[in-house]
């Protein structure tokens, strides 16, 4: 990559200018007073599911070349609005107008796509067993004169598309072999390969590293300058300020406001979303006993990790920052016995451990709320009670579950964590993301874990639930639970971690106390600016 490696969150977005528009300078482009052709206008959209109205006459418009942010808590109606726009659901009332022409009611997703509306879903829709190029050109593969698929041409075109992202993904690789961020890049390449007028992106950066995010923003600016409208859905309010021209806020199916980003701070947006004041909290330094080390890693190395050492004390909240691929999740998997280190050791309570599998880790009172709750955290097709009790059942002897005790335990957890559900028998897949995350957390709290590893605990969780999870983390730490938190969300690290360890390519490249941590410092350690050079405290 030849692009200069400027830190992702440069100092211009510091406290004095919270909504300073960094990056592609969108407002300049948009304010140039050229004739405004409305790409999309949605008026008075109403939609009910099973007799419950979830959208109450929402207006939404995107001008030509405009990047429109769309935010709101989970359940606010963003997805429903976008599903109506992309043809997945028909609206009950209201009209959709694309480039001045009303869209026929009940247009299918395919028809909407042919009208130029493309959507990149948060959950990636790629076929794992096909190659990158096959995915990009699925169902519209270039043909040779004999009518067979022209693989050479297809691969070349795919490579050309991917090049725009500065991503070195070989078009012949199977999607299964790609990292999650690379898969997302393929999705974006696929969406832009259509003749788009309006591109909807649902939380596109939730799996991207800072560098990839920067590339994405450049790309969005590029699309915008070509006159393509972009709807940018994100929980990361700072990103909205960076990349969008205007932002629309929904709450409980109502349009709350549409504002120019220059007029609002991320905090204003959060307030609009939740309907009350949201306070930014900065974490304090760890105030507990500095000698009470409960977990220590010494020189842990394997294919990816290179001599990682760290200590964490009782009741401390230790953050692990870094880019995707820095080895943070892998380190946590070593602690939990899922990955075997080649060298190095892990000490718990000062004693060397021999953790070979998850059960050994559970016996050592470790808990691991994994990064991907759908894959490794929850059994989605089972109910809350079962999911919350899997670990405690194994820790206690006996063949039978003890229905009464587990029901009581589950109710207690539902109350304590504020899990919004019909009851303990509700199937987990029908809960919202935030509530699912709380169930994953409940499993480990019930098990009595004393050291809790949380890997990206607020991914895909809305602002309100996020604050609740932070509150729970702080409470747990205050009660003496040691928290190891892996997060790619810097404001999150700053607001709850008492100490931060930064990793880059399998190495610890920095260690910062809360009082001396800034986003810029973390990014400085996390990017390869200092790679190869001397490290922080090793």
């Amino acid at each position, binding site marked *: 990559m030849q692009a200069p490696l400027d830190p992702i969150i440069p100092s211009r977005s510091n406290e004095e200018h919270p909504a300073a528009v960094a990056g592609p300078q969108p407002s300049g482009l948009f304010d140039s007073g050229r004739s405004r052709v409305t790409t999309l206008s949605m008026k008075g959209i109403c939609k009910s599911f*099973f*007799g419950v109205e979830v959208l109450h006459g929402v207006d939404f418009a995107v001008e030509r070349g405009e990047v429109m942010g769309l935010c709101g808590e989970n359940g606010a109606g963003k997805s429903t609005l976008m599903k109506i726009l992309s043809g997945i659901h028909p609206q009950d009332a209201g009209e959709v107008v694309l480039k001045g022409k009303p869209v026929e009611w009940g247009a299918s997703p395919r028809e909407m796509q042919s009208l130029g509306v493309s959507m990149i879903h948060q959950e990636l829709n790629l076929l794992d067993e096909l190659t990158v190029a096959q995915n990009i050109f699925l169902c519209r593969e270039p043909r040779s004169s004999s009518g067979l698929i022209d693989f050479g041409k297809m691969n070349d075109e795919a490579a050309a598309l991917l090049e725009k992202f500065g991503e070195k993904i070989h078009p012949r690789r199977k999607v299964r072999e790609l990292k999650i961020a690379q898969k997302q890049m393929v999705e974006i390449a696929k969406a832009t390969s259509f003749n788009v007028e309006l591109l909807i992106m649902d939380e596109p950066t939730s799996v991207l590293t800072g560098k990839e995010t920067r590339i994405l923003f450049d790309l969005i600016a590029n699309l915008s300058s070509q006159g393509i409208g972009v709807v940018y859905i994100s929980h990361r309010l700072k990103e909205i300020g960076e990349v969008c021209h205007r932002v629309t806020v929904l709450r409980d199916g109502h349009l709350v406001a549409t504002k120019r980003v220059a007029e609002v701070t991320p905090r204003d947006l959060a307030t609009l979303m939740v309907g009350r004041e949201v306070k930014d909290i900065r974490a304090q330094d760890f105030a507990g006993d500095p000698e009470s080390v409960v977990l220590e890693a010494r020189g842990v190395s394997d294919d990816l990790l290179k001599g990682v050492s760290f200590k964490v004390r009782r009741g401390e909240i230790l953050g692990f920052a870094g880019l995707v691929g820095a080895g943070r999740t892998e380190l946590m998997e070593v602690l*939990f016995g*899922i990955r075997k280190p080649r060298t190095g050791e892990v000490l718990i309570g000062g004693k060397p451990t021999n953790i070979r*599998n*998850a*059960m050994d*880790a*559970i016996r050592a009172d470790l808990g*691991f709320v*994994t990064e991907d709750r759908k*894959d*490794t*955290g*929850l*059994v*989605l*097709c*089972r*109910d809350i009670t*079962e999911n919350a*009790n*899997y*670990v405690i*059942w*194994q820790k206690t002897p*006996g*063949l*039978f*579950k003890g*229905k009464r005790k587990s029901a009581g335990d589950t109710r207690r957890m539902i109350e304590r964590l504020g899990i919004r559900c*019909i*009851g*303990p*028998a*509700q199937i987990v897949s029908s809960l919202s993301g935030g509530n699912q995350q709380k169930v994953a957390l409940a*499993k480990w709290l019930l098990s009595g874990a004393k050291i809790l590893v949380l890997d990206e605990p607020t991914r895909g969780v809305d602002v309100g639930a996020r604050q609740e999870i932070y509150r729970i983390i702080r409470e747990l730490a205050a009660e003496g639970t040691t928290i190891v938190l892996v997060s790619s969300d810097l404001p999150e690290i700053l607001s709850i971690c008492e100490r931060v360890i930064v990793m880059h390519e399998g190495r610890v490249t920095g260690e910062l106390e809360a009082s001396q941590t800034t986003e810029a410092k973390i990014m400085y350690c996390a990017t390869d600016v200092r790679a190869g050079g001397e490290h922080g405290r090793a």
Partner: protein
Amino acid sequence: MDALEIGSESRPVDLMKSVWHNYSILLVFGAIIVICGIAAPRFLNPDNLLNILRNTSIVGAIALGMTFVIIAGGIDLSSGPVLATSGAVLILLQRMVHADGSPVVPLPLAILACLSVGTAFGFLNGMVITKAKLPPFIVTLAVGILARSVVMYFCRGATIMGNNIPQFTGIGNGSVLNVPIPFIIVVILAILFHVLLTRSKFGTYVFAVGGNENAARYSGIKVDRIRIITYMLVGLCTGTAATVEMSRMAAVAATTSGSQYEFEAITAVIVGGTSLSGGKGRLIGTVVGFIILGIVNNMMIMLNISPYLSGAVKGAVILFAVLLQSRGR
């Protein structure tokens, strides 16, 4: 109680849906009995009904074990041949008699050997599937072919007659208070298994493994062990079915004993509403499922339909049952 809780807080449409989802199989079952009773009044004759229960119990026993395997996300295609193999062991042991006519191997011991052979095949299936990480479909298919071949070899491809003594034949052909013994065995198994599936930790882990293997592993559940045990359970059930089948005929036929039973058992499980993708299912559904299959077989005779068409009817029943369930969801 929990189901009621959900119902009471939601609207009538949802309540109807939940009732349909939970009890559709019983409603369909009731409808089938009424229709059959109208089509052939002899169907409702108690002797006929008891006969259905007796005939359906052998596949029924296998289906009970199969339910665990399928809920855990697996499948067992070796049950039929394994039934023949364990049955052959039972017959071969049981037919050996001293000069005075007393058995060389006591009958309980021979039955125990039969159950052990079934369970051992289950263990073999489970070990290969989990340790070699191969798809259950292929492993059990191969083990089934292998088992069938072994039994053909030992029987020289023919039928071997057992020792036709009432203590032995009574298991499959006898009744207690008019209730066929095979059905009593299946009911006892079903109750035990129902408790195992719904009340025990093991049962919950079976659902977890089938629902999301990774999440189960990260929760410390010994996924491989759970898998192996489910295959051993279906093996044990197959051994039980073999005991009943052998005792009914007092003979083992190398090529036809247990033929197609694995498919009948899988059909019963699917008709009973257990999801082939794992993580969902109920034993009561399986019980109703195999009885429905028994009724279908019986009605073919009642209505004088060519036995060659039984497959067509069963195929239609599967499609219909699955269609109803997918609509109910």
